[in-house]
């Protein structure tokens, strides 16, 4: 139960800068996901919090205490690795008991802790099996158990679910959340899977190219991406982003979207913000889920490219290549390839970004 504070954190490897000036505050008992594509600096950040790597500059504070020079064994952190890092020459029980024994707990306490965590993670039946023979799913469970058993104040997880199979991943998401609720640790969770971040985290820190892009609750980063990167990265499929030019019409400010025609007039607040910003070249964005699809009517005109029917929903792809749009529709939606339709984004879901800077143009809420 500790707060973590990152101040002007920078990490370079030779001439390569893995992390550029990161500032982040993680509250006591908070579950924060560091989300981003490979090489965005999220694992580097995590390794510095754990003490495996020293920052090039900047500070890491636990409860206000500077961690510089504190070895990782003394930081009171638990760490779960992507490749489990299980001690394969030991049994499940020996793996679980490793941390408590290293801390010199009395035997009775070790046994009680092993029994408790094994029960919690359903590892009891294989306690005396050699860990080398276990399945990947069990190994990951064991890795989590081995770190959680000493109830560290800070729990760091580095892509713990990326090697397990899809069905088990869903189970583990629930269990991890449950685990955190049970022990109330401060959790930092590194992932490139937005589903994991969205479902488990209290807050998400989206990173790209060593730069922290946005920090916010899952709904905030989904609804109000601060820039094009976050808009594209969050959501499956990601936000539709179409380049265009602002154009005054008799019904108000709209965006000329070239081949797709003119957008519906922008909501007043957004139009006001766009005028204030003085932007001309913009990127018009809207969520694929928040549209009205009609054969005729106002909106963007586009021809259906192909249709993906995936049970609970149908994804309709329009246009081609860089001018492509995706729409998530009801499973029963009747559309045929080649047909030209009108796509009208729900007014409240429309987002504008400055094309040059990539930053969001925000209307007063």
């Amino acid at each position, binding site marked *: 139960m500790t707060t973590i504070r990152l101040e002007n954190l920078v990490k370079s490897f030779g001439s390569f800068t893995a992390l550029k000036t990161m500032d982040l505050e993680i509250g006591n008992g908070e579950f924060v996901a560091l989300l981003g594509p490979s090489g965005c600096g999220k694992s580097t950040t995590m390794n510095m919090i754990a003490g495996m790597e020293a920052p090039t500059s900047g500070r890491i504070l636990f409860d206000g205490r500077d961690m510089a020079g504190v070895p990782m064994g003394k930081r009171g952190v638990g760490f779960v690795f992507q*490749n489990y890092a299980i001690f394969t*020459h030991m049994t499940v029980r020996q793996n679980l008991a*490793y941390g408590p024994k290293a801390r010199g707990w009395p035997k009775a306490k070790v046994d009680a802790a092993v029994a408790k965590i094994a029960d919690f993670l359903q590892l009891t039946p294989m306690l005396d099996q050699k860990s080398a023979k276990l399945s990947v799913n069990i190994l990951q469970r064991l890795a989590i158990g081995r770190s959680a058993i000493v109830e560290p104040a800070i729990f760091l997880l580095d892509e713990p679910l990326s090697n397990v199979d899809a069905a088990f991943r869903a189970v583990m998401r629930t269990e991890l959340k449950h685990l955190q609720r049970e022990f109330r640790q401060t959790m930092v969770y590194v992932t490139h899977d937005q589903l994991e971040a969205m479902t488990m985290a209290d807050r998400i820190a989206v990173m790209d190219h060593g730069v922290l892009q946005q920090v916010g609750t899952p709904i905030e980063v989904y609804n109000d991406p601060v820039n094009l990167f976050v808009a594209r990265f969050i959501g499956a499929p990601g936000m539709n982003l179409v380049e265009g030019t602002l154009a005054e019409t008799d019904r108000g400010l709209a965006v000329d979207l070239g081949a797709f025609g003119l957008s519906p007039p922008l909501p007043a607040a957004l139009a006001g913000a766009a005028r204030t910003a003085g932007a001309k070249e913009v990127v018009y964005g809207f969520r694929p889920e928040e549209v009205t699809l009609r054969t005729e009517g106002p909106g963007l005109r586009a021809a259906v490219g192909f249709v993906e029917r995936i049970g609970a929903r149908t994804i309709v792809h329009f246009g081609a290549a860089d001018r492509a749009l995706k729409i998530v529709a009801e499973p029963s939606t009747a559309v045929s390839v080649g047909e030209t339709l009108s796509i009208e984004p729900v007014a409240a879901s429309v987002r504008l970004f400055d094309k040059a800077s990539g930053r969001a143009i925000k209307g007063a809420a």
Partner: protein
Amino acid sequence: MRRSLPFELFRYAMIALALALTLIPILWMASMAFKPIAEWSASGADLTWWPKAPTLDNFRYIFGEQTTALIATLDRTATKPILASLLAAVFGTLIAMSAGTAAAYGLSRFGSGQNLPLALTQLRLFPPMAVMIPVMIMWAFLGLIDSWWGLALIYGIVTLPFAFWLMKTFFDEMPKEIEEAALVEGCSRFRVFMKITLPMMRAPLASSAMFVFILNWSDYLIGLLLTTKEWVTIPVYMASLSSSMTGQLYGAKAALGLIAAIPPVILGIAIQKHLVRGLTFGALKQ
């Protein structure tokens, strides 16, 4: 995937050829070990794979028993050379493996650059002959000539690069996260090394130790140059098995050779599982 019949035939033919090249000399040696003196240098139709009159005389002879057929007496039996070879090879392997493993771990985890590892391989670049004169002078100065411990020391030094390079490759391939996981629990580096790293390295350690042992066990040159009488090793002793009356004592040599082959074979079988694992260590899913 199913392979075609001609390919399979070719494959097995090649395997048979490789096995024959390896096994025929060994089988010939085994046969010779049980042949009486009359059959040693038989030729033509008398030359047989199976001894016509199998005997244990050759074994008796090298361990000092007089036999009617071999009247020439040996000035020493095979017992002491076998002991010398065992002591020198075992302790030489211990020296090479402990120093090599420690060096490999240090350089794999904390080393930077390629110079030091390469410098260690340079030890193998010299022809042994080129360094043996200075080694002889040093060993004489240290009073290590003709002693098993002197041999063990030089064996340890000569095979150190092998131990080092094999172990370095294995340490490089071991995910560092496993050690970090233990370090994060508050263990010291040394404890992690002893309790986690080494136990997980059992297979690579076993296969490296076996390579090193076989190198030491089969050495002839160093043994020849650094021993004179007391602690000659099996290969040196074997070379001396001849007499002015009978010439080369082929049967006695074969018998000794058969005995000399026992330790590597036993070791190989004992660590077979580890050996295969050790050789394919990098391919393991971690």
